[in-house]
């Protein structure tokens, strides 16, 4: 289906009016972020991408997962956590959209993470194909592209004249287009801007076999020296899913919270005995690469990276996942 720029504006504004929060990339000062919007005009689809990915709308940066209080006679009264709201996400990048089903593999494996699953079921993702990328993007090296529709409910491509071609990918997406069909027209002959994305930068097939064999390779020490062990790479990554839990309680009531955690922190693996199996930053850096390109594919048959480049773009010490993978390619 085809939609003009004016109708797209009306479409988004109608969605906002319908009461469901609409989340889209906006610019606040110089910071680009996915935020709930009040009007189409706030949206900014230009580079740079939002620093934080859209992950937080699927895996909340923190949330209350249960709470309780003690009644008059000391009996425990449990309270269910708040239900996540239905959201519409507009202007998500194809790489990020692809990360939602990838992460769902771990959240619907041995134990079912109803928080993630519910959000995945409720959220509606409207992806817009990229027209440009920057030096850090490498979607094409991990099997994706600016035209990849994985994880999208509706996929939009801009045409040469500034209209958009919209494709309903899932039933959820098709139904939404159907509901607003007066704003859409049949596709004319207009071609979408067919941006091929960044050039391929490494051969993914060679990465896993090398990682399997080279856990103790001296490269890990050499390459990880600049890393300062912060949470920037893992927290901005759309695919990193690690979380921690903490209880906050008084004598009368309490709650349990779940929040993002990062394997780059020293505390991540400290045992109760004080022993720490990942006792230096080089081991922690190795974990990030091994998990994404070896362990996760082992278990879930998919790389835990969509090539968005955030971990490189925002690293305060210029550590580069991409350069690591290219180095691995050279070593094989």
């Amino acid at each position: 289906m085809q939609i003009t720029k004016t109708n797209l504006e009306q479409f988004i504004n109608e969605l906002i009016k319908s009461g469901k929060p609409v989340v889209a990339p906006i610019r606040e000062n110089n910071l680009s972020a996915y935020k709930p919007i009040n009007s189409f005009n706030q949206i900014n689809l230009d580079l740079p991408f939002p620093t934080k990915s859209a992950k937080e709308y699927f895996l909340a940066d923190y949330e209350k997962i249960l709470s309780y209080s003690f009644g008059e006679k000391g009996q425990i009264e449990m309270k269910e956590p708040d239900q996540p709201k239905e959201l519409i996400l507009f202007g998500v990048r194809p790489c990020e959209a692809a990360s939602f089903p990838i992460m769902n593999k771990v959240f619907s494996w041995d134990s079912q993470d109803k928080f993630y699953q519910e959000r995945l079921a409720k959220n509606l993702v409207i992806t817009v194909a990229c027209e440009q990328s920057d030096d850090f993007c490498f979607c094409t090296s991990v099997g994706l592209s600016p035209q990849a529709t994985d994880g999208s409910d509706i996929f939009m491509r801009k045409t040469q004249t500034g209209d958009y071609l919209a494709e309903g990918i899932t039933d959820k997406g098709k139904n939404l287009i159907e509901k607003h069909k007066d704003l859409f027209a049949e596709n004319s002959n207009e071609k979408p801007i067919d941006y091929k994305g960044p050039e391929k930068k490494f051969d993914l097939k060679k990465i896993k076999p090398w990682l399997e064999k080279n856990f103790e390779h001296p490269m890990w020490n050499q390459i990880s020296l600049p890393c300062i062990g912060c949470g920037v790479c893992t927290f901005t990554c759309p695919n990193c899913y690690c979380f921690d839990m903490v209880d906050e309680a008084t004598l009368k009531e309490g709650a349990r919270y779940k929040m993002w955690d990062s394997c780059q922190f020293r505390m991540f693996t400290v045992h109760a005995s004080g022993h720490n199996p990942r006792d230096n930053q080089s081991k922690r850096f190795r974990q990030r690469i091994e998990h994404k390109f070896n362990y996760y594919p082992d278990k879930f048959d998919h790389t835990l990276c969509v090539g968005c480049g955030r971990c490189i773009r925002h690293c305060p010490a210029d550590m580069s996942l991409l350069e690591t993978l290219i180095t691995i390619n050279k070593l094989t």
Partner: protein
Amino acid sequence: MLDKLKQRIKELLTNKIVNCVIGYEQGDNPTLARPVYITKPNEAERLVYNEYCIPILAKYILKPEVRSLKLEAGKIGIIAKPSDVRALVGLIQEKQIIREDVYIIAVGRKEDFPKIYDEIIETPLSELDAKRKTQDAEQLKQIAEFEKKTPEEKRAFWQREFDKCIKCYACRQICPLCYCRVCIADKNQPQWIPPMPNSGGNFSWNMIRAYHLAGRCIDCGECERACPVDIPLMMLNKKIQQMIKEKFDYQAGLDPEVPPPLSTYQEDDKEKFII
């Protein structure tokens, strides 16, 4: 200048005056040079020195991996900007490093450095240092503007800024004076600071970080640069610097012989609880 620097590093390594040198190389990011360790004279060719040599190298001297490079007798060389030398002064004062263990190769204008370096490669005011000076002036202006606000407005300002915090601790990890083996934010028996990035947790974390650097922050600006969500942390740090200057006539990181006011005492202190 770069040739001279490379040449000097080669000599220092060849003559075994240092066992390793911390400097910068060009990595993937065109606007940020990457910290690098050079241990062999011919590796000095990798070094770069330009306006993108930003990450504070004094931080790296504390890394266990680097300390193990020191080997028995040799020193660790460090290619130092003014902020690196100020950080080293702080680390010497606080007994985190021994002066004799480091060999400081200052690069810049003499007048911008505390006089503790081993040698200096003099250059005109670098673009990086000039940029820092403009930033400084802007931050001071921001503070002056901020002080005109009502208490409610001030609170709202920081509430809005701290709400952006994602608890990635990049501000702490990059800070050369944040060297505690177990940070207060990581103490979890009991949990002093709520670990979730909610209003309470973010407010406590950001205020405690700033307080723990009171009289110690050497004004390098690295926490603010590392922060992925652009929280103006230097406004807090600089305000505290101003207060320390006013109350104690002290600026951190200038002279290792001057005792830092908040970690020292005098018998005639007017506060009775001190001793």
